[in-house]
C-alpha cells in the first residue's frame, strides 16, 4: 500500500538556518513525489514536484529511491517560509498518474 511518512509534526528554526523537512514513502512501483505548502489563511498549493527537478522559493527536494525519501531542503530559512508542509505521493502507471496520498504534514516555524 502507498504510504507517506513525515516524522516531524513541528520544526522550529531560526532565520538564516538550514531547513530539512523529512519525507519517507512506501510504494513498490514508480512513484511521483510532490511537496505542497499551506501558508496561514491560504489554500494548499503545490510547491514542487520531483520530476521537474526545480527549485522554488529556494527549496529543493531530491528523490532518493534507495532510501525511499524525498526530503525538502532550503539552505537559509526565511520568516515567510513559516507554513504547513505536506509531502505527497502519486502512483505512475505508464504516465497516467493516480490519486494523491499525503503525509500528516510538518509545521515549519521560522523564528526571527
Amino acid at each position: 500500500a502507498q504510504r507517506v511518512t513525515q516524522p516531524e509534526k513541528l520544526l522550529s528554526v531560526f532565520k538564516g538556518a538550514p531547513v530539512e523537512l523529512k519525507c519517507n514513502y512506501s510504494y513498490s512501483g514508480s512513484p511521483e513525489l510532490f511537496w505542497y505548502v499551506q501558508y496561514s489563511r491560504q489554500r494548499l498549493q503545490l510547491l514542487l514536484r520531483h520530476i521537474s527537478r526545480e527549485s522554488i522559493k529556494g527549496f529543493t527536494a531530491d528523490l532518493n529511491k534507495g532510501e525511499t525519501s524525498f526530503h525538502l531542503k532550503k539552505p537559509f530559512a526565511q520568516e515567510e517560509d513559516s507554513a504547513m508542509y505536506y509531502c505527497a505521493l502519486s502512483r505512475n502507471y505508464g504516465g497516467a498518474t493516480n490519486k494523491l496520498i499525503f503525509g500528516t504534514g510538518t509545521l515549519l516555524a521560522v523564528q526571527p
Partner: protein
Amino acid sequence: GAGVSQSPSNKVTEKGKDVELRCDPISGHTALYWYRQSLGQGLEFLIYFQGNSAPDKSGLPSDRFSAERTGGSVSTLTIQRTQQEDSAVYLCASSPTGGRDADFGPGTRLLVL
C-alpha cells in the same frame, strides 16, 4: 481563471443531521478529489473521481459518507447522521489528469455540535 470553489465556506450543524458540501472544480479538469483535514491527522484521502471511471471510494471512513460527481463537473460530498468526530475542514481538489498538479479549493469548515 477561476480556481476550485467550495460551498459553504463554514457549516455548523447538530449531531445527527445530514450535510451536503459542494465543490466546483476547474473547468476541463477530469480528476477530482475530496480530502479531510483535521488537527494531527493531516490530509486524509476520502474519494477520487477520474473521468468516467468508477470512483475510488477507498478513503471514505464509513457508509455515512458518500459523494457524487454529476456530468463530470460539480461534486457533492454528503455526510449523513453527522457525528462530532466529523468536524474538520473538507478540501476538494481538481487536476487535468490524475495525480499531478492538483489545485485545491479553500475548503469547507464543518463543525458538528
